[in-house]
């Protein structure tokens, strides 16, 4: 056998001559998500849920005469309760995209094919983040017109150029991106699908609820949770006897940027360091 040919083939096979491009990794990660049914169901449920929540929260609104100006119309399409469920579902998606690979064993094949684990995680984070952002934009696109038509004649300012609407839409898409990346970090840390899902729901729903309800008296920690940051950035909250503590907008933007960076760093570090 010709030694040169064998060497050249081996070199090509192990990727010395043709390094995998990042685009190939992104395509592989996209196939892994697109090839399953549950992400599609989850995305459809998110949009339907948000449309229903916008309709339900805007349906029975009525104002005393002249009081409408003191209400921020954005609290109806961007309802805190509705979007905290969306954030949790995005985190579930991110957690399962990592933990699912560990539980099915696909991660071994992936790392045999691409030993550069950091690049795999980066490609996966990119795909997950883009999917979450698309779902977030779709949710906003569904909620704004529905709430706007329910509130027609009572409140204005929910059109695409209304005050604060573009920022709220961007912040809402970012909320789902951040939640899905936090979910990825949880999935990399926990690795077991049921454990990862439980941890994601705890981190994004139950812990903020405990912090925000006053059951655990840590207002500073409550301010830093993703949904509270999103509330602080995108709109003010509805009037209530127990308003949740909100951070000032610049601090909120800073923490909004810190969450995904820390999450991706944790994911990369854990995946690179731990054996599969």
């Amino acid at each position, binding site marked *: 056998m010709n030694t040169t040919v064998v060497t050249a083939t081996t070199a090509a096979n192990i990727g010395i001559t043709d390094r995998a491009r990042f685009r190939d990794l992104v395509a592989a990660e996209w196939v892994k998500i697109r090839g399953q049914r*549950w992400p599609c169901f989850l995305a459809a449920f998110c949009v339907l849920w948000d449309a229903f929540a916008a309709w339900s929260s805007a349906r029975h609104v009525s104002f005393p005469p002249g009081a409408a100006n003191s209400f921020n119309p954005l609290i109806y399409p961007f309802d805190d309760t509705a979007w905290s469920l969306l954030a949790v579902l995005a985190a579930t998606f991110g957690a399962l995209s990592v933990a699912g690979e560990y539980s099915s064993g696909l991660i071994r094949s992936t790392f045999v094919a691409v030993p550069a684990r950091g690049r795999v995680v980066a490609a996966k984070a990119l795909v997950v983040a883009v999917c979450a952002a698309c779902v977030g934009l779709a949710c906003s696109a569904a909620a704004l017109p529905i709430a706007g038509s329910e509130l027609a004649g009572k409140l204005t300012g929910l059109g695409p150029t209304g005050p604060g609407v573009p920022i709220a839409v961007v912040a809402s898409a970012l909320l789902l991106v951040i939640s899905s990346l936090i979910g990825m970090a949880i999935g990399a840390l926990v690795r077991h699908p049921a454990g990862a899902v439980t941890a994601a729901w705890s981190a994004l729903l139950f812990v903020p609820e405990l912090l925000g309800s*006053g059951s655990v008296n840590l207002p500073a920690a409550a301010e830093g949770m993703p949904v509270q940051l999103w509330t602080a950035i995108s709109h003010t909250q509805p009037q209530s006897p127990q308003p949740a503590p909100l951070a000032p907008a610049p601090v909120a933007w800073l923490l909004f940027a810190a969450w995904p960076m820390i999450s991706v760093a944790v994911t990369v570090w854990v995946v690179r360091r731990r054996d599969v």
Partner: protein
Amino acid sequence: MSAKTAVLPARPASARRRARVTDLVAPEWLKLWPPWYTAAASAAVVVLSVVIAQHDPNPYHFDAPAWLVPMLAAGLLGAHTVVTEHATGLLRSTLIAVPDRRRLVAVKAAVIVGVTAALGLVLAYADIGIPRPATAGAVTPRQIAACVALGPVCGLVGMAVAALVRHLAATATGVCAVLGALPLFLQPKQNRWEHDVSNALPYYSWSRLASDSGTMTVPVAWGTLAAWAVAAFLITFVVLDRRDV
């Protein structure tokens, strides 16, 4: 050759033909408790709940949000006993060993009821041990009974979700959604239907019994808890009996 044929000894007259209940309870207990993570998770839940209850500024015993963690833990424990058997395939071996599926479900439920009731009892006395202002009042037996009943209700609900869903991640999502997210999203202070629906949740029925909050009467609250437990048990019973594994 025929002289060498082994002949099984005749069944002694005292031999049992049917497995005793303890023979069925023993393997379920062995599957649930000896793995290190069950005891570790239970201990972690107790510690976490007590820490949360200690930092609770509300001046009464058995404040509902602090009990969300043990509720979820009991639900996940119940779901764990069913869904891991489906996920690992152990259920097939179990059903070959015990073909009577109804007895199996009954025994599984009994083990979960026992463990989660013990968890509720431990947490109730831990909560009583936390010093509260005198306005909290003395703890009545009804409050303790409600705490002990809460664990089994959640455990049986977890078993029912697991029997219906059978998939690890989806089961965990379902338990978190039913026991954790529903009481946070539906609260008995909004409009009428939301008020009625949220009162039908175990969280608010229990908090009516344990901390006298809410608008239900006591018998209705007990009835709601009992209805959840019975419905969850029947779902597990029927689904596991009827569906192929």
